[in-house]
């Protein structure tokens, strides 16, 4: 049983979810409310990880954050370290890989909002930023929670991208799904079984908690007009 790998996966999922919350909310706001005609292009880019093979995504990320890329050089200049095969590199890859799992629920939550509530807030002299936090976010809590849980669960189970960008370094980049792959490769089916069962259990609990929570949240904040 790879407790170290599990702990790494949980840390990775936690930070990925937090970062996705920070960049996903403004991105979803822009996608929902911007009048730009070309925003469908951005929507398509955000959704790419849903259809791209993880190896393709991982390959491009590896190139993009490599030591010879602008991003890699900037990171090296700032920290003296390298992104590929590091936890930070894995984090960058995970954020990109799970982006649609956060942004799409956020966007659908915002789009379902009654625009009149937002306009009422503006007319009451409350700025766009404050309106976002005082009206849009509280009324989109179910969608935001859904997006966060999906990001967390998706990151927990990622494999291909991790393998491409992070490799298999114990305690640094060996996530729980990679440790299962390792166990199977070395014919240690018992260990693979334990870890898989644990991952299955955690995933189920997380999703069950989400759906249960969403139901409760709905009871507290019914959609406007009902």
């Amino acid at each position, binding site marked *: 049983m790879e407790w170290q790998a599990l702990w790494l996966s949980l840390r990775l999922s936690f930070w990925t979810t937090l970062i996705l919350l920070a960049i996903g909310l403004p991105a979803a706001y822009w996608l929902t409310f911007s009048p730009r005609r070309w925003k469908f292009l951005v929507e398509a880019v955000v959704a790419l990880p849903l259809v791209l093979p993880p190896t393709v995504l991982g390959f491009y990320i590896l190139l993009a954050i490599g030591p010879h890329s602008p991003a890699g050089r900037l990171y090296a200049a700032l920290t003296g370290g390298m992104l590929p095969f590091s936890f930070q590199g894995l984090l960058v890859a995970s954020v990109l890989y799970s982006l649609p799992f956060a942004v799409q629920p956020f966007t659908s939550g915002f789009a379902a909002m*009654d625009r*009149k*509530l937002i*306009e*009422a*807030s*503006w*007319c*009451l*002299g*409350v*700025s766009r930023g404050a309106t976002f936090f*005082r*009206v849009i976010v*509280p*009324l989109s809590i179910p969608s935001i929670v859904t997006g966060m849980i999906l990001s967390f669960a998706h990151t927990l189970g990622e494999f291909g991208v991790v393998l491409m960008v992070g490799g298999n370094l114990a305690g640094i980049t060996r996530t729980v799904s990679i440790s299962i792959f390792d166990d199977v490769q070395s014919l240690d089916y018992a260990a693979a079984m334990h870890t898989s069962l644990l991952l299955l259990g955690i995933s189920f609990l997380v999703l069950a908690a989400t759906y249960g929570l969403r139901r409760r949240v709905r009871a507290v*904040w*019914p*959609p*406007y*007009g*009902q």
Partner: protein
Amino acid sequence: MDNDLAVDVRKRHPGGPEIAAALRLPLDKHALMVLFGPSGAGKTTVLRLIAGLDTPDAGSIQCGDEVWYDGARGIRLAPQERRVGYLSQDYAIFPHLTVRANVAYGARGWAVQGLLARFELSELADRYPRQLSGGQQQRVALARALAAQPRLLLLDEPLSALDAPTRLRMRGDLRQLLAGVQIPAILVTHDRNEALALGDSIAIMIDGKLRQAGAVDSVFDSPADADVAEAVGIETICPARVVSRSAGLVTVEIAGVRLVAVDIAGESADVFACIRAESVTIERNASGNATSARNRLAARIVSVIPEGPLARVTLDCGFRLTAIVTRQSGEEMGLREGEQVTAVVKATSIRIVPRG
């Protein structure tokens, strides 16, 4: 600088008619202007342009000495900077906040407690909007708007979301509340009774254009053209031809029938004669002569339709003429379909407007 709200804007929504409105509302007299017109005339758009929620294609909006919008100079103030209290049709109360938190949402100063008391919301302060009736929601929306201390109130069909009995009661309450707060207001409605009950002045909008503005009584009694006459609910509007003019009176002919009216149409020979149903009286005996001040017309009753305590009588006197009588007098006179009666209309009750 004068202390008026001066609006002169044009706006075209894709696929819609062009909205063009020029209006002026004095800000110091806390007057209520009714923006009146049939559904789809562009009334809501005008309110949204003034509030800054939509941007005009061209024109200007000035509030006192503040320029809110000027297409030529590229000035456009955000809704937050205009300090306008805007009430949308369904009130848009924040569903996740209590009544108190809703009223306090954009409040300046410490007015919340007082406003809750004044709008009889103190008892409901800790409730959520979904626990409120339509009338209570409206009071919350109004209190919330006033808490932000607006310079101007914009009310979009504030009574239309209410059921009929509540609407009647709230019409009276609204009038009192608005008179109490001393803030100039523009109220959109397509309901004639609401316009009469609430408005100090009125602006008529038809097909995106502002057609006539003035004191409520004068616009309702003296529409400038046939479209406005129809919009303000004048029942009989007939094309007529001028036969003669003399001494401020005009004789017109409608389908062979001659009517005498007060002349205000100027030079035109083709006119519309507009007659309100209330100013038509029905007499049983078909005797008597037409005088210069009274038109007496032989008529046949086409239909009698009861409307609550009143009855709407459609008459055929060469042209269709609608009259309103109380149901009681209708029954006393025995008004029935097919009967012959005399319709009497005073010359001063016929409004002649130019045609074409």
